[in-house]
C-alpha cells in the first residue's frame, strides 16, 4: 500500500523526469534565423585558420606547401615532430596522421559552409539581399576549402549542402571537381558585394581572383587572363582599398598593416580572443630557438629556409640566376654553418636580391627590430636543418603583447593576417596567363611591377647606421629577357619563388607546372651536400609525390568508397 503510493507519486512525474536538457548548446531551431545563420557563417570563417589542433592544418601550408616545396627544411632535430620527417623526404605513407588531420580540418570547413546554406534555406527572416551575400560568402569559403583539398589530394569526394548527411560517406573520390569549385566562385562573384563594413569578410574580387587561380591550375589561360584582367583593373578590398602593391614589402607580413591594399583574400588573426587559435597558432613552433628576450617566440625553429632558397636570392646584374647556377660554389651564399656564435663571421658581401633579408633570417643581419641574428645560438641543430631562420610572418619586438597574444605556452602568437591570395600573387599569375594567352610584353610589365617594389631602396633592411644591411642589387628585366615563351616562363616562375617564398605556394606551383620532379630532386641533392643525415638517399618520385596520399584512416572508415592515389 505504502509502496504503491510512493510509486504513484514518482511515476506520475517520470516522463519529464527522464528528460534532461543538454547544457551550453543550441539546437537547429535556434539557429535557423538570420542571427543564427550569420553566427554559423562566422563559424565557417573560423575554419579558415585550421583551428582544429594540428599546426600542419594552418592556412599557410608551411609543411605541405613550403617544406615539401623545398623552400624550407623542417628544423629542430630529428626526433622532434618526427612525423614531418618522411614528408620532407617524400616518403609519406597513407597512415601519416597530420595529413589525415588536414583532410578532416578542410572538410570541416566544407561542412560548416554547407550548414550555413542549409540553415539559410530554412530561415524565414533573411532578406533576399542578405541571403545572396551570406550564400556568396559561404560558397566562396567552400570553394576555398575544396581548392585546398584538390591541390593536396587531387582526387577528392565532392558534395554540397543538398547531399544528405547519410549519403556523404558513400561518395567516391574523383579528380573532376573543378566545375563545382568554379561554380562556387562564380556564384560568389555574382552575388557578393564589393565592399562591406566588416573588413574580415570575403568579397566579389576575392572570388574573381580565386576563379582566375582555378583557371590557371587547369591551364585555361585565356579564361584566367580575363578574370585576372578584371581583378587588376577593378579589384578592391572589402574595406574599399583599390588593389595595389604596398610600397614596403615588409608591411605585407606586419600586423600593423592588416587588411591592406595588397590583401585579396586573407585569414584574419587577432589577440585577446580567449584562445590563441584565433592568432597564428600554427606558426608558434616556427620562430628561432633559444632567443630568450632577444628574439620572438620561444620555440623551436621548425621552419628553416633552405640553402637552395637562400642561394636563389643571389643576383647578377640585378637579376636572378635563371640557369640554376646559384647553388654552385661560386655563387652560393656564404653562410655560418658550423660557426659558433662566439666566433667571428662576416656575412656574404656579394650581390643579392633585397627580398633575401625580408624573407630569411641569417647571421649578422638585423632580425626585424630584434637583435642582429646571432647565427648558431638561435638554431637548435645546424647539422640537421641548416643555419637559417624564417622572417616573414614574424612579429616585431615593439609589437610584443600589443599585437601578439601571449596567453598560451609560448609568449608570442603573432596576429598578422595570413594572406591566402595577395595582389603580387595575382600579378604574377596574370603574367603566366599573359605568356600563354596574351603578350610577353604585358607579362614583363607585370613581373617588373613586382620587382620595382622590391627595388625601392627606402624599404631595404638597414644597419643601425642607415646603410643597407647587405649588398642589395636588383634591377628590372629588359625586354630582351622575354624573348620566348620558355624564357618568360622561367622568369615568372623564378619571380614567384623569390616574391612568394615561405608563403606556402611553392609545392603546388611546381606540381601544376609539371616540374616538381626535377626541381625537387635538385633541391634534395643540394641540401644533402651538407644535411646528409636529413636528406641522404631521399628522392621525389614522379607520378606519385605530386599529390599526398588519401589518408588510410579515411579509406578504412569509408570501406571501398575511396580510391588511393597512384603510387601509395
Amino acid at each position, binding site marked *: 500500500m505504502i509502496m504503491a503510493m510512493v510509486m504513484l507519486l514518482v511515476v506520475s512525474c517520470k516522463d519529464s523526469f527522464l528528460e534532461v536538457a543538454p547544457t551550453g548548446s543550441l539546437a537547429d531551431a535556434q539557429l535557423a534565423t538570420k542571427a543564427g545563420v550569420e*553566427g554559423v557563417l562566422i563559424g565557417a570563417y573560423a575554419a579558415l585558420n585550421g583551428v582544429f589542433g594540428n599546426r600542419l592544418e594552418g592556412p599557410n601550408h608551411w609543411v605541405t606547401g613550403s617544406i615539401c616545396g623545398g623552400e624550407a627544411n623542417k628544423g629542430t632535430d630529428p626526433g622532434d615532430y618526427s612525423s614531418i620527417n618522411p614528408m620532407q623526404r617524400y616518403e609519406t605513407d597513407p597512415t601519416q596522421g597530420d595529413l589525415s588531420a588536414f583532410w578532416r580540418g578542410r572538410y570541416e570547413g566544407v561542412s560548416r559552409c554547407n550548414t550555413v546554406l542549409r540553415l539559410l534555406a530554412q530561415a524565414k527572416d533573411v532578406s533576399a539581399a542578405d541571403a545572396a551575400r551570406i550564400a556568396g560568402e559561404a560558397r566562396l569559403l567552400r570553394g576555398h576549402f575544396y581548392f585546398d583539398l584538390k591541390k593536396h589530394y587531387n582526387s577528392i569526394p565532392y558534395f554540397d549542402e543538398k547531399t544528405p548527411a547519410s549519403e556523404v560517406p558513400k561518395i567516391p573520390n574523383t579528380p573532376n571537381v573543378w566545375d563545382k569549385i568554379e561554380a562556387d566562385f562564380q556564384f560568389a562573384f555574382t552575388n557578393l558585394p564589393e565592399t562591406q563594413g566588416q573588413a574580415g569578410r570575403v568579397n566579389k574580387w576575392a572570388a574573381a581572383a580565386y576563379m582566375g587561380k582555378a583557371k590557371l591550375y587547369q591551364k585555361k589561360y585565356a579564361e584566367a587572363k580575363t578574370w585576372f584582367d578584371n581583378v587588376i583593373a577593378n579589384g578592391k578590398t572589402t574595406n574599399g582599398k583599390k588593389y595595389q602593391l604596398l610600397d614596403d614589402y615588409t608591411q605585407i607580413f606586419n600586423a600593423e598593416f592588416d587588411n591592406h591594399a595588397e590583401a585579396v583574400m586573407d585569414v584574419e588573426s587577432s589577440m585577446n580572443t580567449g584562445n590563441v587559435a584565433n592568432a597564428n597558432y600554427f606558426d608558434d613552433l616556427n620562430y628561432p*630557438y633559444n632567443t630568450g628576450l632577444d628574439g620572438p617566440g620561444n620555440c623551436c625553429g621548425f621552419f628553416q629556409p633552405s640553402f637552395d632558397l637562400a642561394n636563389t636570392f643571389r643576383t647578377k646584374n640585378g637579376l636572378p640566376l635563371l640557369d640554376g647556377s646559384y647553388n654552385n660554389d661560386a655563387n652560393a651564399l656564404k653562410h655560418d654553418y658550423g660557426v659558433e656564435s662566439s666566433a667571428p663571421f662576416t656575412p656574404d658581401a656579394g650581390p643579392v636580391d633585397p627580398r633575401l633579408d625580408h624573407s630569411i633570417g641569417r647571421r649578422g643581419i638585423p632580425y626585424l627590430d630584434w637583435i642582429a641574428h646571432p647565427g648558431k645560438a638561435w638554431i637548435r641543430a645546424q647539422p640537421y636543418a641548416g643555419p637559417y631562420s624564417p622572417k616573414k610572418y614574424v612579429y616585431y619586438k615593439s609589437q610584443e603583447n600589443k599585437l601578439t597574444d601571449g596567453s598560451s605556452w609560448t609568449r608570442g602568437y603573432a596576429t598578422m593576417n595570413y594572406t591566402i591570395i595577395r595582389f603580387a600573387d595575382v600579378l604574377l599569375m596574370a603574367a603566366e596567363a599573359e605568356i600563354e594567352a596574351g603578350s610577353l610584353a604585358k607579362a614583363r610589365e607585370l613581373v617588373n611591377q613586382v620587382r620595382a617594389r622590391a627595388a625601392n631602396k627606402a624599404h631595404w633592411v638597414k644597419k643601425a647606421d642607415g646603410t643597407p644591411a647587405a649588398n642589395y642589387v636588383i634591377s628590372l628585366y629588359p625586354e630582351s629577357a622575354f624573348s620566348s615563351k620558355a624564357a618568360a616562363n622561367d622568369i615568372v616562375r623564378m619571380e614567384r619563388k623569390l616574391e612568394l617564398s615561405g608563403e606556402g605556394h611553392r609545392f603546388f606551383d611546381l606540381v601544376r607546372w609539371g616540374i616538381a620532379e626535377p626541381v625537387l630532386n635538385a633541391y634534395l641533392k643540394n641540401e644533402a651536400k651538407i644535411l646528409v643525415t636529413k636528406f641522404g638517399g631521399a628522392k621525389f618520385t614522379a607520378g606519385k609525390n605530386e599529390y599526398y596520399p588519401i589518408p588510410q584512416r579515411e579509406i578504412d572508415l569509408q570501406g571501398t568508397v575511396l580510391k588511393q592515389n597512384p603510387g601509395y
Partner: protein
Amino acid sequence: MVQFFEKVTRTMNKYAMLFSFLFISSAMFAQITGKVVDADNGEPLIGASVIIAGTSTGTVTDLDGSFSINAKSGDILEISYTGYTAKTVTVGAETNLSISLSQGVTIDEIIVTGYAVESKRQTTGAVSTVPAKQMAAIPSGNVEQQLQGRVAGVTVLTNGQPGTTSQIRVRGFGAFGGNAPLYIVDGVPTENTDFINPDDIETVTVLKDAASASIYGARAANGVVVYTTKSGSRKAKKMEVTYSGLTGFTDPNVKGSPKMLDPQQMADWTHVAYRNNAAANGTAVAYTHPQYGNQATPRIPTYLHANGANGVVGNVDLAAIEAAYKANPSNVFLIKPNLEGTNWYDAITRIAPIQRHSLGFSGGTENGRYFIGLGAQNQSGILLENEFKRYSFRANSEWDLLPWLTMGENLQVTYRAVLGQQGDAGGIGIADDESEVLSAYRMPTILPVFDEFGSYASTKAAGFNNPRNPVRRLVLNNGDDGGFNTAAFGNIYFLIKPVKNLTIKSSLGGNYNNNYYKNYNYIYLGDSEPEASNTFSEGGGYGFSWVLTNTATYKAQLGSHGITALAGIEALNTGAGRFFNGSGINPFSTDLNFVNLATVQSPQVNSGLYNGVNFYSIFGKLDYNFKEKYYVTGVLRRDGSSRFGANSRFGVFPAVSAAWRVTSEDFLKDISWLRDLKIRGGWGEMGNSNNVDPSNQFFLYRSDRGSTFYPINGQSSGVDEGFASSRIGNPDAKWETSETLNIGFDVSLFDNKLEIILDWWKKTTRDLLFTVPLPGVAGNYAASPAINVGSMLNRGIDFQIINRGNLGSKLTYELTLNNAFLHNEITKLADGIPYFDGGSYRGIAPIRNQPGYGLSEFFGYKMIGYFNSKAEADASKQPGAGVGRFKYEDVNGDGSITPADRTFIGSPIPKFTGGANFNVGYKNLHAEIYLYTSIGNKIFNQSKWFTDFFGSFEGSAKGIRALESWTPALGNEAKAPIWESASNISTNGAANSWYVEDGSFLRIQRLAMYYDFDSSLLKRLKLSRLSLGVSANNIWTLTKYTGLDPMVGGGADTNFGIDVGNYPVTPAYMLNFTIGF
C-alpha cells in the same frame, strides 16, 4: 536547486502522511540483549554480528561479547562471527539471550549490499568481503586503492601520488571506457569514494557477478563496491573512544631510479654519435657540440654558460657578468658544469612525511546509537610540492522514535586538498603524460640545479636541447598553488516495520561538493624554450547529486521454506552543477596579495554547467531456500535513464542463481573433514552507460572561442562569436548489456583449517557503446555519437584460499591467498571499422583495438634484431635501414617492410593477479606480510624513446643503455640501436616490440608487526585496547621491468600500460598506535 527542494518537500509531506497512517498498525518492539561466546571455552566473542534477518538492522558485540538490539517477537536474529558457524535465533519471550557459537564454517561473513544485509552463508552469487582493517593498513589518499590484491578478481592499477585516482576493474574490462565499478557508501551510490577515511569503515563488500550485483541493474556491469561506515551499539553503554594514529614517511627510492650517463660519459657518447653519423653518411667526422669542442676527444668546459657565451674554457670576466646579472637578474646566467653529475630524480624528490589521526566515538542508549569519526591525514608526495590533505568529520546516528519507526542518518563533511598532482583523470593519467618525472630523465647530469648566482640553471646553456629544470618547475610553478574540495555526503533514512516480517526503508541521500583552485606560474628565462610570462589562473565550481530509495523487505520462515522478498524504487541524479575559471598573464606585481583575475593582462574566462543524468528504477529480489540446503534467488531491475532517447530509455536486467549446500545432505553427514560445501551457479544481465555523454541523443550547435570564433571586423584585438555543429545525436542508443555466468563453490575442510572459494566466470558485453569515428568528410568538430556496436568478452577464475591453524599452543597463523586469472578479448567492432588506434606519443602510436585481441593491445613492428652489417642494411627493403638500426620482421612476407607489417606485440592486461597475506600471532605479538603480484602484463616503455636514442631531442640526457648500444661486436645483443642522430622508422620513428617489456612483478606491499597489550593491563588502565605497531610498505619488488615502477596505469581504458614518466610507488615506513577506552 529550487526544484530539488520542492521535490524533497513533496517527499517529506508524503512521509508525514504515511507516518500518521502507520500509527494504526504497529507491532511491539522490545529491547533484546544478549551475549555471544565461544562454545568451546566460553570466551566472549568481540565484534560478532547480530542482525535482524531481512533488514539492514544489526549490531556487533562489544568487548564483553554483549549486544543489544531492538527486535520484536518473531524476528529472526542472525548471529555470525568470522571463523565460527553462524546461528539464527527467533525472538520470543526471552529478552536476554545467551548464544554460543562454535568454530566452524567461516564463509559466514556479513554481506552488505546496500539494499539488504545478508550472511554469506545464504548468498548464491560471487561476493567478496574485505576486512575493514585491511583497508586502513596501507595509508593511501583513496581507499579503493587498497582493494589491490585483497579481492580475487579486482584489478587495481595505480601510482605513487597521494590522492591519485586509480583504475579499479572488477572482473576485467567490459567496455571501451567507463569501466569503473559503482560505489555504494551507506546506501548512496557514487562514482567517487576519495573522501572516505579508512578508519571509519565497518564493512567492504564487492559484488562481482550478476547474481549479486544486478540488483543495481543499469550501473552494475562493472561490479559494485559497497562500503558501510561504523555505527554505535544498540544498548545503553558508555561512550567508547578509539584513537588510531599513524606516522611515517615515504622514501623516493633514489637508488632504484634508472641510471643516466654521467657528464663524462655523455660527452664521450656524443662524440661516438658524431662518428657514427659520419660513418652512416660517408662524410668526414664533424664534432659540433657547443660544449664539448671541435676536437676528437671531448672536453668539459669551465662554464657551460656565461651570460650568452656557451662552452667557455678558461676564465670569464666575472666582474662584468656579475654586473650584468645585477642589472638584469632574470636573464643573466653563469652555469658551471656539475662534474659529479646531478641526479635529477634525487633533486625532484624528497623523503615525504605522512601522518593520519582518527578519533572515533561510539555509543548508544536503548533508543539510539551513534558513531562520530574525526579524521585527519596529511601526506606528502615524494615529488616536491606534492601534498595531500584530508580532514573529515563523520556523524552516524540512528534513533528508535517509536516501536515501529527508526530514523537514522549518515553524514560526512570533508575537506580535501590535493596539490601538485600531475596526470589527467585525477592523477591516474600520469603514466602516459610527459610529467616532471620524465623531465628528470631529460635533464643532462652535467647541468647543476642552480647556477653560480643561485638562480635555477637550465638549457640556456646550449647543446642540451629543450628540457626544463624540473626542480624549478615544481618549486616555482607549484609552490604557490592552492586548491581544495569541500564536500558533504550522506543520507537520512526511515525504517518502518508496519507488520510482522515486513520492513520498509526510505532513504534520501546526497552529495554536495564545492571546489576551488589557484595556479601561479612564473617567468623563467633560463630554458632554451623559456616561459616568458607570469601566468595566473583560478576557478571553482559546485556539484550536487541526490538519490531517493524506497525498499520493502519481507522475510519469513514457513516451515522448511525460507523466503525473503525485496521490492524497491529509486530515483537519482548523478550530479548537476556549475563551474567557472579564468586565467591571465603578467600582473603588474607578482605579490600574492595583489594577483587576481582582475589584475592580470589578457584575462580569459570560461564557465559551464551540467545537469547530470537522471535515473528512475524499480527492482525486486526474491530469495528462497529449502531447509538451508537448496537456495534460489531471482532479481529483476528496470532502469530508465535520461542519457538515452525516448526510443530506448528503459532497460530490464534479470538475474537468477541457485546454490546447493551439499554438506546439509544426509549422505555427507559422516564425512568429518568436510565441514562445509556449497556449490553456486548464476546467470544474469547488467547494464552500463558510463561511456556515453549525457547529450548523446541530441543534435547540437555550440560556440567556442578556440574553434568557432572569428575576428570578422578585421580587428587585431577581440573576436566575434560564431557557431558550428558540435554534436551529432543518436536517439537510438541503448544500454550496454553484460551477460555473466558464474559457477563456483565454497568449501571448508579440516575443521576450517582450509577454506577455498572458487569461481569460474564469463562476462560477455554486447551492444557496447562506442563513439565510432566519423569519416573525415563529415568534418572533425562535431562529436560523433556513441552507438551500440561491438562486444567484449572477459572470462576468468577467481579463487581465495585460506589456511589457518596453530603451531604449538601459542603460535597461530593465517594465510590468505586471493588470486585471479583474466582473459579479455574484443569480439566485435562496428561494420566498416576493422580497428581503432589509441593515442600517439612523440609520433609513436603504440595501441590498437581490434576484434580478436585484448583491449588496448600494443601494436607495431616486431623487432627481430639489428642490421649487423652494411650489406644487410643495403639489401633490406625497410625504409631507413642502416647499420645498427632496428630490423623488423616482414610479417606479411611481401619482401619489404611497410605499415602492413605491423602486428600485435603485447597486452597491458595482466593474465594473473594475486595477493597473499600471511599473519602470525604469538601471544600478543602479531606479524603480517602482504604480497601482491601481477603476471603476464606488458608495459610499453615509451620513456626509452627519450633516454635511449641519441637522436631524440639530441643533447638532452640519455640513459646508460647508450653504453650497450649497437656495435658490431655486440650485434643482436645490443640493448639499443646504434648511437646516432638519424630519426626514421628504423630508429626512433615507429612503435616496435623493442619498447615492450614484461611488466610482471611481485611486491612486498606490507610487512608489519604489532603488539596488543594484555587485557589485564588494559583493565588496570581502564582501557579497552592498546596496540603499537610498525610497518614497512613496498620495500621489495621483483620485476624484470627496467623503468621506474612496473605498476603502470593510464588515463583511459583504451590507453594504458604506456610508461612515459610514471610516478613510482616507493617504500614507506610507518609507526601505528591505537588506543581505546
